């Protein structure tokens, strides 16, 4: 409960800071929503050529992916904005500030920053879901659950990828590229990918667990598969946290003097 309150407090403070620059805040959030909207036209054209289904995915299924991904991604950068800057915190010695505070390190570090454009992503995801999906209680419940699971996995993955900075110096470019790759993969019908590459999408770039199976569960619900998926999600997040803490043993303080207001 205390941890949730910490995240909420950070959110409140960061939002208040962002609202000081209202025009920039609105233009960034609206810009991001417009940015995403352009791709609806892309899929309309694609389905115009492909017919009603692309390898088992209807237009509505693809729109489910395009609702889920912005909401999950938005939550991950709005509430845990520092998850995209972990490498920088490590190599510039800025972790000291968080290590000295009487709060759980990972949560405190991740939640202390907010990326404002993420609010546009979140709004876009919800609006697109409401506009394109049948609004049954089960579907809404699964949408919320999968969005939260996706946010958690994206954060876990960033922890995992950026932790390489502890071991190999600055891995920022690799981590950003890997995280971007996962984000790109989750926006396309999973069934177009075949063969051994799917193993990569179940492990290092786990699009299967956060996007492809959720769509399958929306198409036809299966309780056992839901539990397997959530289990895989928990495993990924645990791996990220464990690698971070194991890398932390190699961390060298930056001797930085900093103040956090």
């Amino acid at each position, binding site marked *: 409960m205390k941890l949730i309150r910490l995240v909420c407090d950070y959110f409140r403070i960061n939002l208040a800071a962002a609202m000081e620059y209202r025009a920039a805040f609105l*233009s960034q959030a609206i810009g991001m929503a417009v940015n995403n909207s352009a791709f609806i036209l892309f899929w309309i054209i694609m389905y115009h050529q492909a017919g009603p289904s692309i390898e088992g995915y209807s237009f509505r299924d693809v729109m489910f992916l395009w609702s889920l991904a912005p909401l999950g991604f938005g939550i991950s950068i709005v509430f845990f904005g520092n998850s995209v800057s972990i490498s920088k915190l490590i190599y510039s010695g800025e972790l000291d500030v968080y290590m000295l505070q009487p709060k759980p390190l990972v949560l405190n570090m991740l939640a202390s920053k907010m990326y404002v454009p993420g609010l546009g992503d979140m709004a876009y995801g919800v609006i697109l879901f409401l506009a394109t999906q049948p609004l049954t209680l089960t579907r809404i419940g699964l949408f919320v659950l999968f969005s939260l699971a996706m946010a958690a996995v994206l954060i876990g993955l960033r922890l995992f990828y950026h932790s390489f900075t502890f071991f190999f110096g600055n891995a920022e470019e690799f981590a950003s590229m890997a995280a971007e790759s996962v984000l790109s993969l989750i926006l396309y019908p999973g069934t177009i990918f075949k063969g051994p590459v799917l193993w990569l999408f179940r492990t290092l770039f786990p699009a299967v667990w956060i996007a492809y199976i959720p769509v399958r569960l929306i198409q036809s619900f299966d309780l056992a598969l839901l539990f397997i998926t959530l289990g895989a999600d928990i495993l990924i997040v645990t791996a990220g946290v464990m690698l971070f803490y194991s890398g932390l043993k190699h961390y060298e303080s930056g001797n930085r003097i900093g103040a956090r207001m």
Partner: protein
Amino acid sequence: MIRKYSTIFSFSLKNQMVYVPAFMFRNVFFILVLFVFSNLWRVVYGARDTIAGLTLTQALWYLAFTETVELGKVRIFDEIQTEVKEGTLAYTLNRPYSYLLFMYAKGLGSSVPQMLSLALIGSLFSFVFAGPLPYFNPAAAAVVLMGGVGCTLAWMLLIGVLSFWFEEVTPFYWLLQKLIFIIGGMFIPIDFFPPWLESLARYSPFAFSAYWPAIVSVDYSSMRFLTAAAGQGFYILLLLSISALLYRRGIRQLSVQGG
């Protein structure tokens, strides 16, 4: 006069050539896009040999060329925006060159090495996964691909000049990027569009940044090449002229405010 700007072009080119190995690493993302689309096109094509006259091979090569232009360009509006905001633009006023043409030539020169590395990777990937193009005219492709970057940079010059009136011009760039993505036919050739959108998109300025360079490269005909080159020349001149007009007004405003 041309020599002045071609020197700026070649300095930027040499400067950026040093970073070619770094581009190669960053281009992994480009390969991922090609990989995703090679799978997507394979499914969409299904048993069909062609869609709107293009084969699966041509559709994949098409994306490699549009992405070469899109990912190869340098965001020149960022630098213009910073110089306007900080007032450092004032220092360039008494220099013996046109600030806009300087930025344009610099942008072109910096884009070439990135485009070369992208074209290399894109060609390699397309060749391995889709096979060779039935016919390819390298000279025509080079001209229209450069023309494509020229068009996008002319847009970015115009966006940069808007910094005289807007504090943040990046949202204009996002808008431009999306128009090139969709109306310009960056991911999907305009020939695949529904008729109502096709007629709107084909000769729009955005199509000369993506569709025309790529379609000339994958399905060459002299008529197509001439249309692409003429359209690119027209839009580049138009956009540069509008930028110059706005720049003159902006500079007056800058002087009034004291730089």
